[in-house]
């Protein structure tokens, strides 16, 4: 009995160890976003609160915490309140299977890839329910757009992950990283280049980030699904969005860029696999999210649908065929061991 309690406590501690840095990361990602986009637009960005504006996220959080949560009078109260939680929950739960290093993972489950895909597909419920429950026309429009967009990009994303599964011969995220051992050219971004691009762009679309942010579309439908939200409920949506961004970036790093493996394999010290490599790669991919937002104008809705259904899905299917042939032919250096693993 005591042992069980200890085990539960240990898991709780692990969760805290993952979540606290994650939340801090979210907070400072907002700061980084404002700064980076500021510099890209030849501005300075936030620089008033604390030295160089470092305390800006804290100030923002305090402000949102103090504000009142207004529930519109004709809203569905229960769903209105639960929607932000539904949006944040999956974004956090997915971190359970992310391996930070060899064996450094909260839940080392066999079908990890599938689990991540399932959870990332659940995030849309928060958006849809928020848009519907607020009983606002703009909210509903945002929810509709989001639902259609999610379904379109989820398929492409799933196919891209099938490619990773084929290459690694496993659904376990740790095993996927281990299958990429051997240096930059052994990572899956190279043999699966189209899938890598499709996955990353679909990831941007799934997190409703610019240039795919039609669900918010502040210039067309005010703020879309969260138009009626205020205070902490509003903040939770933002937490979820940024947590999702970090998640997609980390997953891209794990599945296509070797996770915790070092790009300088073979060189002493620099070549050692480490958590730091994973963090650096995640930060690298996160930078793209911010860069996109500063660079691209928002896609029109029908263009988003076209890109998802008519470009990405056929592209992934074709590349899966190519990959299948490559695996059968044992094209080195990526597929010779994968085929051996699948055959065993």
């Amino acid at each position, binding site marked *: 009995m005591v042992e069980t309690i200890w085990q539960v406590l240990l898991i709780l501690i692990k969760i805290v160890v993952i979540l606290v840095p994650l939340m801090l990361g979210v907070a400072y990602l907002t700061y980084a976003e404002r700064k980076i986009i500021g510099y890209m637009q030849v501005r300075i960005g936030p620089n008033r609160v604390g030295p160089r504006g470092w305390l800006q996220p804290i100030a923002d959080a305090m402000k949102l915490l103090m504000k009142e949560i207004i529930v519109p009078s004709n809203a569905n109260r229960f769903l209105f309140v639960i929607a932000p939680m539904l949006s944040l929950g999956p974004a956090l739960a997915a971190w359970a299977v992310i391996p930070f290093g060899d064996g450094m993972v909260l839940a080392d489950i066999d079908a990890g890839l*599938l689990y991540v895909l399932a959870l990332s597909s659940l995030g849309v419920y928060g958006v849809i329910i928020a848009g519907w429950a607020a009983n606002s026309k703009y909210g509903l429009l945002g929810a509709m757009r989001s639902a259609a967009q999610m379904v379109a990009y989820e398929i492409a994303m799933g196919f891209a992950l099938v490619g990773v599964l084929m290459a690694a011969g496993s659904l376990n995220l740790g095993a996927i990283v281990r299958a990429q051992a051997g240096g930059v050219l052994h990572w899956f971004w190279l043999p699966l280049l189209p899938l890598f691009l499709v996955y990353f762009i679909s990831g941007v679309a799934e997190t409703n980030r610019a240039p795919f942010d039609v669900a918010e579309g502040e210039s067309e439908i005010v703020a879309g699904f969260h138009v009626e939200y205020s205070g902490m409920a509003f903040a939770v949506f933002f937490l979820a969005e940024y947590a999702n961004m970090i998640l997609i970036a980390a997953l891209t790093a794990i599945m296509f860029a070797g996770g915790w493996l070092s790009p300088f394999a073979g060189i002493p010290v620099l070549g050692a696999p480490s958590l730091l490599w994973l963090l650096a790669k995640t930060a690298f991919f996160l930078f793209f999210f911010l860069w996109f937002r500063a660079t691209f104008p928002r896609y029109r809705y029908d263009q988003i649908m076209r890109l998802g259904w008519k470009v990405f899905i056929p592209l992934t299917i074709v590349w899966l065929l190519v990959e299948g042939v490559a695996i059968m032919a044992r094209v080195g250096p990526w597929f010779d061991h994968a085929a051996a693993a699948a055959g065993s």
Partner: protein
Amino acid sequence: MTFEKFVFYVFALITVYAAFRVITVRNPVHAVLHLVLAFFSSAGIWLLAEAEFLGITLVLVYVGAVMVLFLFVVMMLDVNLAPLREGFVRYLPVGGAIGGLMILEMSLILASRHFAAAKALPPHGPHYSNTRELGALLYTDYAYPFEIAAFILLVAIVAAIALTLRRRPDARRQQVGEQVRVRRQDRVRLVAMAAESRSAGPAEEEGS
């Protein structure tokens, strides 16, 4: 009661409650959300039965995609609920009788001593991969039914498109090919203009 059994009963209760609410709740959106809950807890039961692949796939496919589309459609509907409620009370006796009969039958069948599926399967070792086993079966023993299922989905796609796609003459479409083929000369004309001296132009231009 072991822990597993306890969890099973919790999930089973939630499933039954949610399924019941699907048909009794007034608002169609709530009904869909209860259905989502029912799927979720059934996935939980499958996970308990060590069918992790099926459990997660249930969430992925049904909760993540199918029910999202359901919600999408239901939210667009403007359903008048009053007649639906009337029908519910009127058909309740018939439905209840059929439901009662079904329960009776199920208990008769499940209680029968010849019901082979009631025998427990042997537990598997820690390195047993449900996904791999399922894949191996699906692509060997069940390859033929698997391919037929693919054709059923193909027919479903063809049917859905044939029944819904209407070519409207007034619809505006994006012609990507033409967009790509556009050259700068087609849209922008650079006109060479001779420089004009300052005195020739109106003097106010500077100030505006």
